């Protein structure tokens, strides 16, 4: 059953990737600005720029470039970065780890917080605590991520010095230490969304018939909440969680700029600004594959929990 799901998803992935490749390739080439002019610098003569362009094959018509690009992808070669002249895959891999760690830490902060807030709000429905949590969640959604980042950095890094201001550091623990503030910044944006929906599902499940049935069997409330209410409330929220994780990339771009984290969000921005076509394409591929992967994992986990999906 699971292999079937994976095969379906892969079948879905191929056309989507092709669509993504086409759209991005045209989009990136339409952006005004010439990468080679940027590379050679202002003082380079037109002849020099023309010479460099021929070497990279950028003087070919777009359609020819697209053809070669698609041919190379088929063989797994995502091309070379125009700016750094190293394979795109290598460049992405170099920058993948900071963003991956940032997302992992953000998720590790988001899940428990969202669950605790949702559970508290649901159990104290329409009482002061519920309103407080709802107000916080509304505020969380309304504050721009970069504003949170700047303020947190100002207070906790510069003034109090508890955390490093920016950068990524050396070695795992130093990396984690550097990413504490950035992941909190990101989590503040996401926890409210997840908490609000989880609260809604929890309230719905607390009224479910099988809860009354369990109560009629003398089963204690804590067990009912854990085994009956929470598990059933989880399923619709897994989908939402998948969307949020895929959505997280937008947030990482901004946070990486504020905290100068050398992740793929920063790489994407500098590649777009530097018109480093193949890096932008490689990254969009990566995002597409990553989003599909996240959706797949969410489906697998849902199947694990819900037997109805397994049949």
């Amino acid at each position, binding site marked *: 059953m699971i292999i079937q799901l994976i095969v379906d998803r892969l079948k879905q992935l191929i056309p989507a990737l092709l669509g993504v490749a086409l759209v991005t390739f045209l989009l990136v080439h339409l952006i005004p600005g010439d990468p080679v002019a940027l590379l050679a610098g202002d003082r380079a003569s037109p002849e020099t720029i023309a010479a460099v362009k021929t070497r990279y094959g950028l003087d070919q018509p777009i359609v020819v470039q697209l053809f070669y690009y698609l041919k190379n992808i088929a063989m797994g070669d995502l091309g070379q970065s125009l700016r750094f002249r190293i394979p795109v895959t290598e460049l992405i891999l170099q920058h993948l780890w900071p963003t991956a760690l940032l997302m992992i830490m953000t998720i590790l902060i988001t899940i428990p917080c969202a669950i605790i807030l949702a559970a508290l709000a649901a159990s104290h429905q329409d009482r002061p605590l519920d309103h407080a949590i709802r107000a916080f969640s509304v505020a969380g959604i309304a504050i721009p991520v970069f504003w949170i980042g700047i303020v947190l950095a100002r207070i906790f890094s510069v003034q109090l010095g508890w955390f490093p201001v920016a950068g990524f550091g050396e070695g795992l623990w130093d990396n984690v230490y550097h990413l504490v503030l950035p992941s909190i910044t990101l989590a503040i944006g996401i926890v409210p969304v997840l908490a609000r929906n989880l609260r809604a599902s929890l309230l719905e499940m607390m009224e479910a018939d099988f809860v009354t049935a369990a109560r*009629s*069997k003398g089963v204690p409330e804590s067990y009912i909440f854990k*085994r009956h209410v929470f598990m059933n409330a989880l399923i619709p929220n897994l989908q939402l969680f998948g969307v949020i994780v895929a959505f997280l990339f937008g947030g990482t771009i901004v946070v990486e700029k504020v905290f100068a984290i050398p992740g793929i969000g920063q790489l994407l921005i500098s590649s777009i600004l530097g018109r480093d076509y193949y890096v932008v394409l490689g990254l969009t591929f990566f995002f597409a594959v990553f989003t599909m992967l996240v959706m797949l994992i969410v489906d697998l986990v849902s199947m694990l929990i819900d037997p109805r999906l397994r049949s």
Partner: protein
Amino acid sequence: MSDEHKIAIRVRDVSITFPTEDGPVTAVKNVSFDIRENEFFGIVGESGSGKSTVCRAITRLLPDRAEVTGEITVHAQKMLEMDLDRLRDIRGNGISMIFQNPSSHLNPLMTIGDQISETARFHYKRNREELNELAVSTLKDVRFSNPEGQVNAYPHQLSGGMKQRAMIGAALACDSKIIIADEPTTALDVTVQAEILDLLIKLRQERGLTIIIISHDLGVISQLCDRIAVMKDGELIEQGRTEEVILSPKEDYTRTLIASRPEAIRLHNSAWKGEPTESGNPVLAVNRASIYFGGQGRNAVVKAVEDVSFDVMRGDIVGVVGESGSGKSTIVRAMINLNTLSSGEILYDGRDVRNFKGAERVNFLRKVQMIFQHPQESLDPRFSIEQCIMEPLKLHKIVPKDRIASRVRELMEMVELSPDLLTRRPRDISGGQAQRVCIARALAMEPEVIIADEITSALDVTIQAQILRLLTRLKEQMGLTIVFVTHDLDVVRTFCNRVVVMQIGKLIETGTPQQIFETSSHDYTRRLVAAIPHLPQGLSQSETA
């Protein structure tokens, strides 16, 4: 205790009110009754009578905001004053409950084995193997065919009947002596209902249980219970031995309840011979019709209707009867192209219904009107009643613009509804009233044929009786032909003059009600007829109009 049997449950002057935005609503007004040890006690009443609310109060399963006054004792223990731990001890381990809709009362994510052993787990703290053994033995007690295999099944893999048995198992896992069954068989097909009722009777003997049965179906209650209580609008208006209450009811309401049962009401006037018209060509002819769903992708083909043929003669009332999944709704919906036939044909006055296009299609649809099961759901929630009825009149220009308003009032009178309902919204009127609006809307099209798809199944028995009387009167007044789809055989027996019996997409037999109910040769039909719960003998022909 005063009389010979010990009292199991004593309910004294219990009243229950719920605070709502528009002020407190009293659902139960000082109800009192006693239930003796090992007795089958039935509580009957229509929706909103408070019957299940009072029973849920016994084990305090009502939501916290409910205010319960009065006194409830189980085996001399005061339930309302009991502390929570003591209460939790008794629940499931002294007094258990069974509910109406088994699929929503079982956690879809847990195996039925776990949900049964769950009860014991918190009362006796057994280890895994012992709990598993308990689950298997309980499944055996509730007549599961292969307990060892099915203990790990999930609710969605079981049929309605099996799920109900699992729920009964869960209630009995810790040898509870008192079972409160809240409409245990209402959601089940009549044959499955019969099996569950038999099971309850056997379990009562095997385990010496005291059982309270709550139901709106007088037949189910009278077949099972030693003593009955009748509730109306939150009050317990009558209680006593079953025969006394049924044969000589003291209250008028009880009498109307008994009189409203299909087998009791006289629908057709004396001219109605009830003989189906044999000759002449049929207004609707179903020839070897089959309807298959699915088929693409991995899911297998579902054969909803397989090679079914029958005729509907003008002026007849044809009852299409069968259990859920028999395909009865699917085939009638194909008559107006709501479903597409996979093979075969349906003719209206000799022409294939699929060939009507453009203006012809509208004329055909005006002639053949369909009414649906859920009245509130068949009316656009954002329309007023007037708009609902007026819409077909305006769109098809059935009457000139200036006469629309008066025509709408005429239609309202025809279905016995007062005009001041016109400004209301569908959700602000009762189920019965909504169904009458649907009938009025259908009549606006001036049809020849009415297809009624389970139109009374969602209504209380008293309201069902009124709708059937209305339909009979309209049929005679306007010479309608009616195709009446239902799972309730009693209704077919008294209302229809031709019957079509279907099972899992196939046609079993057709004939007059008399042939089907008395002389049928098919064992499925006979099993269906036998499963109908009846009132005690010597009563069914009472003369009340």
